[in-house]
């Protein structure tokens, strides 16, 4: 009984004095912030959130409706489509250039072989092989660096 008196007298609703005081202080604090002008009130709320390490809720969050979400998703899907289309076009261009170059070299090599100019053919094959090795090596190195990232 003595211990209870020291800690604070129990009220009939089961709350100690210090609990009632804390509740009063909290209520007074909430009321004081409510009475602030709107911009200052917002600043105090954001400040308290930031200080507590909670990321303040963006003012956009409460305002977004289904329509806005649909629109955002639509824009995103368009963006994905556009990116995919661009990549596809780039791949097609690369393939066309690759095939044209290969056809050109093949024609030159075949013509020289038919004409019997072996020394020139050997030089061309050496140059083409060096070029192809360099190109393949570069591509491999790039892929390796990308994988590391």
């Amino acid at each position, binding site marked *: 009984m003595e211990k209870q008196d020291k800690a604070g007298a129990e009220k009939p609703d089961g709350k100690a004095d210090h609990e009632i005081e804390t509740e009063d202080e909290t209520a007074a604090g909430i009321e*004081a912030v409510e009475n602030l002008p709107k911009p200052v009130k*917002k600043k105090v709320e954001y400040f308290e959130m930031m200080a507590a390490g909670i990321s303040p809720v963006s003012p956009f969050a409460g*305002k977004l409706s289904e329509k*806005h979400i649909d*629109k955002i998703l639509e824009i995103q899907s368009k963006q994905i489509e556009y990116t995919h289309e661009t990549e596809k076009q780039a791949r097609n261009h690369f393939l066309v250039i690759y095939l044209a170059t290969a056809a050109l070299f093949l024609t030159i090599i075949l013509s020289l072989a038919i004409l019997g100019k072996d020394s020139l053919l050997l030089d061309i094959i050496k140059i083409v092989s060096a070029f192809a090795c360099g190109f393949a090596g570069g591509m491999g190195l790039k892929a390796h660096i990308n994988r590391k990232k």
Partner: protein
Amino acid sequence: MPDIMNDVDSDLKIFLEMTSKPVEQNFIELTKEITELGKEQVLSEKEFNIIIERLFSSYVESLANKLIVKNFEALIRKGSLIS
């Protein structure tokens, strides 16, 4: 989405302004603003005291959080937490 922009314009400005500054600077500026409101008697003395107390305790809380994070980082660097 211009309708959203109109609705949240002032809130968004405050939000961006606050999040772009460190807590210390926000604390100083907000304390100054509250002091001005106290001087202009927009707030009663009791309200002024309560708000300043709230701001101060929030600021202390943020400092404590930073200290905890720093100590954790130091412990992780030392390897104390891993072993």
